[in-house]
């Protein structure tokens, strides 16, 4: 069993330092927004969480296709890692968005295309995890997961598109016509800087978590192999 690579340790420390920097940027550097005050500060981490969720979604789709082409179980591990990260970060995104929406839009939830698509994506990934749970044979589990990831990655953009269409025909009641316009604000340079810094930081967080999760998957595979050896 290999010990933790130095680069991963370095990456962990780097992400932690960057994260502290992000907290400083959000709470002390970025100015208070005139209308929304402190609530607006959720925005920086909300966007960054959604960004990580999207990165996970893309990584899962790519890994799924790579598995179907190459039939190498390592891509299955990568795909699972990406999906798990995406599930966690999208749920944080949805919750933080709701906390922001309550004082801003006056409701916890609207059927806005972005909100709805995020929720549907979450459902697809939960179904994905349930599917994996129901299959023991690792090779078959990998095949089915990759197929389902592919179907999911194709249907999500179509879902997003059809909800946009649904919205334009059915105008939102909450938020007066265009829900995107309520709670939008002009961003000053420090605000923009903070946002991009948060995106940058969370990209590192994503890579770090991704690496850890793939490593964990590898290690548990090795444990399985060792267990079989001991039983013999």
């Amino acid at each position, binding site marked *: 069993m290999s010990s933790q690579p130095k680069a991963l340790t370095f990456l962990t420390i780097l992400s932690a330092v960057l994260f502290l920097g992000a907290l400083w940027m959000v709470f002390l550097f970025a100015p208070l927004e005139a209308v929304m005050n402190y609530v607006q500060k959720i925005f920086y981490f909300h966007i960054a969480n959604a960004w990580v969720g999207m990165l996970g979604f893309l990584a899962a789709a790519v890994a799924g296709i790579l598995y179907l082409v190459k039939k190498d179980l390592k891509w299955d591990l990568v795909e699972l890692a990406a999906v798990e990260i995406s599930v966690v970060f999208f749920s944080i995104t949805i919750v933080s968005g709701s906390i922001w929406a309550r004082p801003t839009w006056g409701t916890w939830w609207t059927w806005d295309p972005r909100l709805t698509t995020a929720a549907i994506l979450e459902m697809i990934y939960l179904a994905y995890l349930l599917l994996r749970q129901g299959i023991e044979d690792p090779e078959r589990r990998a095949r089915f997961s990759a197929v389902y990831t592919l*179907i999911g990655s194709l249907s999500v953009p179509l879902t997003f598109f059809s909800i946009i269409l649904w919205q334009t025909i059915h105008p939102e009641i909450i938020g007066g016509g265009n829900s995107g316009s309520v709670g939008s604000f002009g961003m000053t340079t420090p605000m923009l800087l903070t946002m991009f810094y948060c995106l940058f930081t969370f990209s590192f967080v994503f890579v770090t978590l991704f690496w850890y999760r793939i490593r964990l998957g590898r290690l548990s595979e090795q444990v399985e192999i060792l267990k079989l050896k001991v039983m013999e």
Partner: protein
Amino acid sequence: MEVQTAVNRTQSNAYLKAVLAIVWKDLAAELRSRELLAAMLVFALLVILIFNFAIELQPTLRSTITPGVLWATFSFAGTLGLNRSMAIEKDRGCLDGLLLAPVDRSAIYFGKLFSNLVFMLIVEVIVLPVYAVLYNTNLFNPGLLLVILLGSIGYVAVGTLLSSMAVQARTRDVLLPIMLFPVILPVLLAAVKASGGFLQQAPMNTIWPWLNILIVYDVVFSAIAFMVFDFVVEE
């Protein structure tokens, strides 16, 4: 060149024959047992009954709620049929027999797709007049029938693929609807909006976008399912 086209023609004939053979087998089996259609139909009628009490289908609301009730009914009854149709193959070892047959694997997919589609359309053809009689609404509308056909194709295209995955899992009965509903959402949304458009005689330019979504979904997802079906039935 001519030899090549002749070979191609015999190959495509053999492929079509294989697809038709599977459809025929399913229909013949169903004609004798009638267990699948009966279950789907009774279930569909029960769903409509439940909707009646759950949302009180008052005459004023009916025209706006009807498409939603119909599509919810079709999709619930549809999962029942899809599950059963694949479970029959799996339980009696028929799937292994089919896989041993010297035909392209995707022929099995299209065969199952067509027979599932036929079952679904039969249920819809019976449910529609029953609904029309029970709630005194005119549902005979060529546009609506077109939407039902397009929506059912998309539903069954993905449903057949996912149900052949679900039957091979431990939690198979509960797995199919959970996997199917989130990915089928564009079909349901577009079908409900297009059906509503036709029933309320909305102008065609508001209905076309929904029909386009249905067509795109049908084409994209049957192509994808055709490509990946091999991975699902591989042993």
